[in-house]
């Protein structure tokens, strides 16, 4: 019990809400946050469907403690909003904050500003400001947050594409188990940028219409932006502070397949192994899992591979869904978003439907949930699969045990 890993705070922002309450409200209403792209300097404005937070950078700044900090960028605002929600919920003193190590997952970091600056440099030889010059790398988010909040100086940032925040969470848990750290703030953030929209468009796996995860006629993903973080600590550390667990991190694995640099193994071998190893680490059987929060990006490759793998692990009728139809694919943040949404569901003993699904895919003949329902068991399995073949699965549990 004292070695259990407890989640004592959660924070989230995405196109379906700037905090837990707004997010929950939209999930309950089964309301999608997908819209036409609004705010970028891009030809995809009013053309591509995305999960955009419909606030300009200046409007987002009003929600952030970094509002007047020179050199800031959109990712930092989103990370700050979600991190502070989680930290506030965990109820930490400033001394306890000093012991928090942040593990972050991101692919874009300051890209929304960097791409503007680089263009200005190419066109007019304009040099970036001194503040901006220090915010080009992925680690800049951690540097800003650790200084502002008074967190541990030593922090980690992962960039493994779509599985980045899941790697942050799984590594956070491993570090807690090792005794190297007392508590962690683990999660991830990514924003919409011209760079990533064009990148995914070049791969021709982006859909300009609302995405259809696991549907036979899916044509690709919708990008999204968001941030989500968990405060995780050992049971003994949390109890000593008089805190209870919102959820328990049961186990997980980060692994890699070696099939292709962007495509998943068509028979889902990588996904299958990740799920099996995660269950092993959590000391659970497939029958113990009532709810699977899938990666389900609505690309042809991912959903085929994941569907086949789900069938191999869980049989013909697993209870699974993807939430990409609500938030879009938030890339690095997606695993952490899945975790927070799953915890919100756990608190209500509920799961919400997979939006966008209509027709069963003959590749595996599985059907995700199309109506909300009651969680009958306490465990949720969460998948995130990234480019480069990086496959992560982790399992979180309702601390009340049997429902």
């Amino acid at each position, binding site marked *: 019990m004292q070695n259990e890993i407890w989640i004592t705070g959660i924070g989230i922002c995405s196109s379906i809400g700037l905090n837990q309450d707004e997010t929950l409200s939209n999930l309950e209403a089964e309301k999608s946050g997908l819209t036409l792209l609004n705010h970028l300097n891009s030809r995809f404005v009013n053309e591509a469907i995305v999960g955009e937070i419909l606030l300009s950078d200046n409007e987002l700044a009003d929600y952030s403690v970094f509002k007047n900090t020179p050199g800031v960028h959109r990712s930092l605002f989103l990370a700050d909003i979600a991190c502070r929600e989680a930290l506030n919920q965990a109820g930490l003193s400033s001394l306890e904050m000093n012991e928090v190590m942040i593990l972050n997952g991101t692919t874009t970091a300051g890209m929304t500003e960097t791409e503007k600056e680089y263009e200005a440099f190419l066109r007019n030889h304009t040099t970036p400001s001194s503040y901006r010059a220090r915010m080009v790398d992925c680690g800049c988010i951690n540097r800003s947050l650790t200084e502002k909040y008074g967190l541990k100086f030593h922090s980690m940032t992962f960039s493994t594409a779509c599985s980045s925040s899941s790697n942050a969470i799984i590594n956070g848990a491993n570090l807690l188990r090792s005794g190297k750290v007392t508590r962690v703030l683990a999660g991830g953030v990514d924003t919409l940028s011209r760079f990533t929209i064009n990148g995914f468009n*070049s791969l*021709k796996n982006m859909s300009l219409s609302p995405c259809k995860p696991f549907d036979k006629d899916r*044509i690709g993903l919708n990008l999204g932006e968001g941030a989500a973080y968990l405060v995780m600590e050992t049971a003994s550390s949390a109890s000593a502070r008089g805190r209870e667990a919102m959820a328990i991190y049961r186990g997980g694995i980060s692994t890699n397949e070696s099939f*292709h*640099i*962007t*495509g998943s193994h068509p028979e889902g071998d990588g996904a299958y192994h990740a799920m099996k190893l995660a269950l092993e680490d959590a000391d659970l059987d497939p029958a113990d899992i009532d709810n699977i929060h899938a990666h389900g990006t609505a690309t042809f490759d991912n959903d085929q591979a994941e569907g086949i793998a789900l069938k191999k692990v869980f049989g013909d009728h697993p209870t699974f869904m993807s939430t990409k139809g609500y938030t879009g694919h938030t890339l690095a943040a997606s695993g952490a978003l899945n975790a927070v949404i799953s915890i919100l569901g756990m608190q209500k003993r509920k799961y919400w439907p997979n939006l966008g699904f209509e027709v069963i895919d003959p590749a595996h003949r599985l059907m995700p949930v199309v109506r909300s329902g009651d969680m009958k068991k306490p465990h949720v399995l969460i998948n995130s699969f990234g480019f480069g073949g990086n496959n992560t699965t982790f399992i979180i549990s309702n601390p009340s045990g049997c429902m």
Partner: protein
Amino acid sequence: MEDLIEKLKIQIIESLNLQDFTPMDIDTDAPLFGEGLGLDSIDSLELMVLLEREYGIKVNDPREGRKILESVRSMAEFITQNSSMAQ
């Protein structure tokens, strides 16, 4: 058509950086994917970039693209039928 086929072979070699190949090494009718040149899905996307930049033809669905890119000849035929920029 033969001039287009020759030009295409040079463009394919350049676009995919097939350093050890000359146009003579590419069989006009052989499959580009799987056997033969052994190209993969990323290569097919790169060839679709070639079609768009050099011939103004936009292919949105990668599966449709694979049919067009079956061989150099199928590419040339498609370009002849669809492009305002082909000779």
